[in-house]
């Protein structure tokens, strides 16, 4: 595959997997938690690097999963102690992220894991770091990681579809029916962490948030069915990835920034023109209703 092809494939995979899990994310009202986890995974990755002195995918994923779980646990712990939910999130992720940055600045120096990279990702490097996969030949490591994560996340969502649905909609009833709500919560946090770090190499820590939240929010405005929302969300993620890459190529600017902005543009369009929940449609319906009253 060509250089550009790999980049587009990587970006599409990011959009797809983030979109999928993002749909559940916003329905569970965990957007800010995702914000927190995306920042905290930096610490997980840094520690994984410092311990193993390698930047291999497996270690990073482990470090990220651990950091994500730690974040969820700490936030829960603080909140149980009476700190407001939002404040708990704010304290935990900023502190963990700050520690991560300090570690990079002091211990890691200018190694491959420099701060800007950690933040912004550098998708242009992806095609160069390859690994050998039996049957497929040389493929970029990031692509392999993303494929695996996509399979795992997609599989978990499909397998436990109704459990995700009920724990997102009515956790009290779910608990009363015997479904392990707390377990699913922490499982979900782990899935987010793993997704975040898989996308990390491509779009960086902060932009993952855009990919997780915005396509899902856009999809939310187009449909009233969960299954459709999941698929649409993934599709929008892919669209944003393509659009962002195109824009970055034309404007000669940061690819990850462009992709994040592209998700915003998609959302804006949905916000305005979606026939079901868009602004224009609502105005028209209000007009029609008012018209009927008058006549």
């Amino acid at each position, binding site marked *: 595959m060509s250089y550009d092809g790999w980049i587009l494939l990587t970006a599409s995979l990011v959009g797809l997997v983030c979109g999928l899990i993002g749909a559940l994310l916003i329905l569970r009202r965990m957007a800010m938690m995702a914000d927190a986890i995306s920042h905290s995974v930096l610490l997980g990755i840094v520690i994984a690097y410092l311990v193993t002195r390698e930047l291999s995918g497996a270690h990073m994923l482990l470090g990220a999963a651990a950091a994500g779980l730690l974040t969820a646990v700490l936030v829960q712990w603080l909140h149980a102690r009476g700190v407001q939910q939002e404040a708990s999130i704010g304290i935990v992720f900023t502190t963990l992220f700050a520690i991560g940055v300090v570690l990079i600045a002091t211990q890691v120096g200018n190694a491959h894991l420099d701060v800007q990279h950690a933040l912004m990702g550098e998708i242009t490097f992806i095609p160069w770091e390859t690994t050998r996969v039996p049957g497929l030949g040389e493929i970029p490591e990031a692509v392999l990681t993303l494929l695996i994560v996509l399979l795992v996340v997609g599989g978990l969502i499909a397998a436990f579809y109704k459990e995700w649905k009920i724990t997102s*909609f*009515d956790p*009290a009833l779910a*608990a*009363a*029916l*015997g479904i392990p709500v707390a377990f699913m919560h922490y499982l979900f946090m782990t899935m987010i962490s793993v997704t975040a770090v898989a996308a990390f190499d491509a779009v960086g820590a902060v932009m993952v948030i855009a990919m997780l939240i915005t396509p899902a929010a856009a999809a939310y405005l187009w449909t009233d*069915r969960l299954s*459709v929302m999941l698929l649409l969300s993934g599709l929008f993620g892919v669209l944003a990835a393509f659009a962002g890459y195109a824009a970055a190529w034309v404007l000669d600017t940061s690819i990850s920034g462009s992709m994040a902005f592209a998700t915003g543009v998609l959302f804006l369009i949905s916000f305005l023109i979606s026939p079901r929940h868009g602004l224009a449609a609502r105005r028209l319906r209000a007009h029609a209703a008012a018209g009927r009253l008058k006549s």
Partner: protein
Amino acid sequence: MEPVLQVRGLHAAYRRTKVLDHVTFDVMPGTLTAIIGPNGAGKSTLLKTMLDLHPRLGGEVRFFGTAYRNAKLKVGYVPQRGSVDWDFPTDALDVVLMGLYGRIGWFRRPGRRHRELALEALDKMGMADFAKRQISELSGGQQQRVFLARALVQDADLYLLDEPLAGVDAATERAIMEMLKTLRAAGKTVMVVHHDLQTVEDYFDHVLMLNRTVIAHGPTTEIFTQDTIARTYGGWLRRKERVTG
């Protein structure tokens, strides 16, 4: 006859205030009981604590002679309507189907039989026509009926409802009470956290009067008196015991 529900010395706190203090009562099968008391008296907390949804500081609860976790399929819980996000992308039939998830089990999808059961339950609540309607488009009363259908489909023996009549229209209120009376006639047991003192005598054969502890419990005609009402609702604001002291 064995009681379907036995509560002994139940203690619970909310934040730093004790809301349940030495709560003790038995519920006999085939009764329709109202749980009443002032706001903050622990009514919702009582249900949640019994169902292990809220931490218990002490005491014992037995459902059908055993612990709740062994009796889950026999107990139907209808939480408050406000506890749920009604913008969730799903329709009425789907919500009712959720009541069967406990029975469908892991890795399996709801089948045709399940869908039929769900549709029947909706029909019993007069909501069959709304099966495919997005829940955000339903009125408060309609949402409450869907919730009740979801409880019905569980085919439980004991139903616990948290303020099912709050904020619903008159027709819905009638429909719900009709359904609860039908359940009682079928030998089921129903307990309802109720907010309206005016209708207690019309709707319920038993009443549990709660103000952190049980003030009175028994047949409505016997114990629902001026005296017990005054004792339940008076003086609440003056007493607020702190757990930590």
